[in-house]
């Protein structure tokens, strides 16, 4: 019978193991742009060096039907080995790293920035008398919160890696 279509949006963290070959990233990105899917974050790097494989982590959002489409479309690409929807499969860890530059010359702003960095477990990886660069790893939300806190203290530049993700426990992709 006419199944009511679920129109609510959900976020999905999808990991894809691909053959490490030229053009594979363009293929994945082209799939998303060509079919009008969202990309909130996308990371890619070689893993399993000896077997020429890379892992792509994509954070996307859409209705349940669209997310199922995204997975099916990824899965039919010739160089794709495996597709896993970490959000759907259960508890998982999603982390990204950010470098955050703060330009602060006054003592109170400098000490407040350092205090907050300490509270967020961000490391100072570069410092001058006018600036800091903090390195911080954590969930996207935690990084967002830290960046917002730095804004009034002289936030000058942010560089983020995008999300790397993995299932908790013994389950592997």
């Amino acid at each position, binding site marked *: 019978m006419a199944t009511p279509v679920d129109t609510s949006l959900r976020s999905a963290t999808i990991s894809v193991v691909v053959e490490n070959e030229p053009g594979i990233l363009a293929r994945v990105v082209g799939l998303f742009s060509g079919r009008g899917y969202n990309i909130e974050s996308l990371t890619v790097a070689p893993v399993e060096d000896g077997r020429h494989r890379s892992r792509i982590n994509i954070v996307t959002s859409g209705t349940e039907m669209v997310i199922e489409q995204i997975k099916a479309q990824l899965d*039919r690409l*010739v160089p794709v080995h495996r597709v896993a929807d970490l959000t759907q499969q259960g508890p998982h860890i999603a982390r990204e790293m950010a470098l955050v530059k703060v330009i602060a010359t006054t003592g109170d702003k400098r000490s407040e920035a350092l205090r907050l960095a300490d509270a967020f477990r961000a490391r100072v990886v570069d410092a001058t008398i006018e600036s800091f660069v903090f390195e911080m790893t954590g969930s996207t939300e935690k990084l967002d919160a830290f960046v917002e806190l730095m804004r009034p203290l002289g936030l000058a530049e942010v560089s983020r890696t995008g999300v790397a993700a993995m299932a908790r426990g013994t389950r592997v992709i």
Partner: protein
Amino acid sequence: MSTPHHPAAAEPATQSGAEILLRALKDQGVEVVFGYPGGAVLPIYDAIFQQNAIRHILVRHEQAAVHAAEGYARSTGRVGVVLVTSGPGATNAVTGLVDALMDSIPVVCLTGQVPTHLIGNDAFQEADTTGITRPATKHNYLVKRSADLARVVHEAFYVARSGRPGPVVIDLPKDILIGPAPYTPPPTEAHRSYRPRTEPDAAAIARAVALLKGAKRPVIYTGGGVINAGATASEALRRFVHRTGFPCTSTLMGLGAFPASDPQFLGMLGMHGTYEANLAMHGCDVMLNVGARFDDRVTGKLAAFSPHSHKIHVDIDSSSINKNVPVEVPIVADAGRALEALLAAWDADPSGPDRAALAAWWRHIDQWRAKDSLRYTQSQSPGAIIKPQYAIQRLYEITRELQRETFITTEVGQHQMWAAQFFKFEQPNRWMTSGGLGTMGYGLPAAMGVQVAHPDALVIDIAGEASILMNIQEMSTLAQYRLPVKVFILNNQYMGMVRQWQELLHGGRYSESYTAALPDFVKLAESFHATGLHARTVDELDGVIRAMIAAPGTVIADIAVDQKENCFPMIPSGAAHNEMILGPEHESEAAGITDEGLVLV
């Protein structure tokens, strides 16, 4: 350069990349290549010159090479092969590649490329072919090392024909073609990542059969996937439809998988489908889709598509399932394998279908059929203008009477829909049309490819006078290879489908849809060493059709048809199946078509 992996005793110690390429093609069973030479592929043409195993058909435009390969592939079930040069050769092929992608046709397209050291330098006739064709192909390759060449060719054929078939491009830099390369035979082990599922899940088959056995108003809706699954799949479909006693309809792409003359066939469904097919889809309680993809030309308005049915969807491509229409029972499998499994499960289940309900459903369908939604009126008085439907009906009847093996290709537009409605196909692989992409100019080169594969068959391109001009240069190829293709033009001097939409949707403002200064098609045929015929009135029609078929060579038959004729029935864009517009023949009895439905037009 590494030494060959295989010490093939009788082979010369080193072969060039071009020679290795041809050897790999030969090992893949390739007999014919459709191509056009140019600077970057000269080494391949030199190798072709020095062998006899593979025949080359010289087209007049690269787009036509791909359509010809599509026609070859669709009429034989084999992979079609194209060879074009770099830059403009490759870009000209793109329309054909997208056409093959949309219609799931297995094609391998070899493109030349500038030498590897010049890639990225904006060299003469350089284009980023893999970049351009990435969304136009199922997969593509750039061969940058001679050692990869043979392996990539074998893999390309595997990818093109496996799972949901499609076009694959291999971009070949000139230095790879010239330099020595090792040969590797086709692999025996499975592909490392691409292994499409073909066997259906037994639990899903059981759920499907349970739904089908309980159906009171079932319909079987089939598509091009059945054709692509091979002749055995069409045969399994026939057995399944007869075993169940269910009505069967088909998409444009699926015509011929089930015989059009069979009483259980409802005709084509969709935008220009029959009244009975569309109303059966709308009113059914269980729908079995085999190898079709719920295309917008089939579903119409999605929210109102078959609102009361349990849906079962068999598709080899899991991304086609739940893409447009949510289904209850997805079955990812080869259409033929799934039909065999359905038959076995149907027979194993002791319960019978609800025969009383089925009989009542057929009575309903027969009432819809009685409407005769394809009806038109042809005046038989001498000098009467020819109705396009009548021209195709007579073409069909005369070919059937002559009992020649007949293949039909079409261009795109009204003539295409009339051909689908009035030419009845009894077997698969006899009907080639551009369904998904809707490429005007497809039919003539596709007919060329079909005729190359079936030299003794009757191959007819049912065309419109606008579409035919898009690849008319291929008349020259037909002449060169003496391919006796018959071009049957329904000439209404308009881009008929554009004119029809302008009449129905744009207040009759016929903006740029009339072609002034059309060529004299008889003289055009003659200038290409072919025979030109024309029919102006209904009394001339049969004679022209018979003369066209009897002529030993290529023929263009220019049939002047009623300019004002529209293609009905029609489900306007964005309307539901039960908001179908019937033709003027039915004006007085347009029950079921509400004012609201007419406003939607």
